[in-house]
């Protein structure tokens, strides 16, 4: 794992940064559109896209060691279990949600 193997040109990072800012602007703008139930899907979808850019480029998932992908993915893998198993309760619970 040499230094050269890990480094990307600074211009690529600047382009990625500008892309993330653009996505942030789109996310902010979309909040004022009447998207209804799709609004959180769009907003969190954009957040996930920004996070993907951050993980792959800024946090250098791109490049050696490739084992990093397994380690990085494991958090999200177990998160699926956490969400899935928790929803087996909340999706089937009677009297939920209680009147606010």
């Amino acid at each position: 794992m040499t230094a050269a193997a890990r480094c990307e040109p600074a211009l690529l990072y600047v382009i990625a940064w500008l892309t993330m800012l653009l996505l942030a602007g789109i996310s902010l703008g979309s909040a004022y559109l009447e998207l209804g139930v799709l609004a959180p899907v769009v907003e969190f979808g954009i957040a996930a896209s920004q996070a993907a850019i951050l993980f792959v480029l800024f946090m250098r998932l791109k490049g050696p060691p490739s084992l990093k992908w397994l380690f990085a993915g494991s958090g999200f893998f177990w998160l699926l279990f956490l969400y899935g198993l928790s929803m087996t309760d909340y999706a089937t619970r009677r009297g939920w949600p209680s009147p606010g």
Partner: protein
Amino acid sequence: MPSRTLHPEIQYRTLDQQGETAQLGMWVFIATETLFFGALLFVYFLYRRAYPAAFAQAGKDAVLWCGTVNLVLLLTSSLTMVLSINAAADGRRRAIAAWLVATALLGFVFLGVKGYEYYADYADQVVPAVNFMIKAGEAPVGELFWVFYFVATGLHAVHLSIGLGLILYMLRRVRRGDLSPAYYAPLEVVGLYWGFVDTVWLFLYPAIYLVGR
């Protein structure tokens, strides 16, 4: 650039192996943090789905410009952080320090804006257990939104403060000449942590500031 860590620790064969192990260790930590903040967001989604109108009403009181400015600050700080790592790979010691200082400054400004926002929230009487007041036309259950807001942003601020401490420590190591193009894994590990703190804000931003707009 002189280096005090050109020889690997006894349990490693090479500096590359030592650096890779350090990176993987930080990724394991980030996986646990993903579960930590992921559980918090799960609770948010659960209550937002249960009380959509109350969350939309409460979310309107969040200070949008503070959240947006802080999003831009953190995204920019991720850029400066990765540029400092690039500089380390090239052995440009002054540039490492300069980009690290820029990253730290952006982090401190983030905390300043956050502090101002908390002050504005206090003045707006939306702090649960301190001075929360139900406004006309708003549902009492909206207080749940503010509980999430303070827990999530408070935990994020703690993480960011730790990141700032790590950056200042890295500056000290740069000054001592501890990092070299052959070994700059400590800086990469701090960069990973900083990137994760930034990622958390990417998800808190729509959860807090865009709901109900």
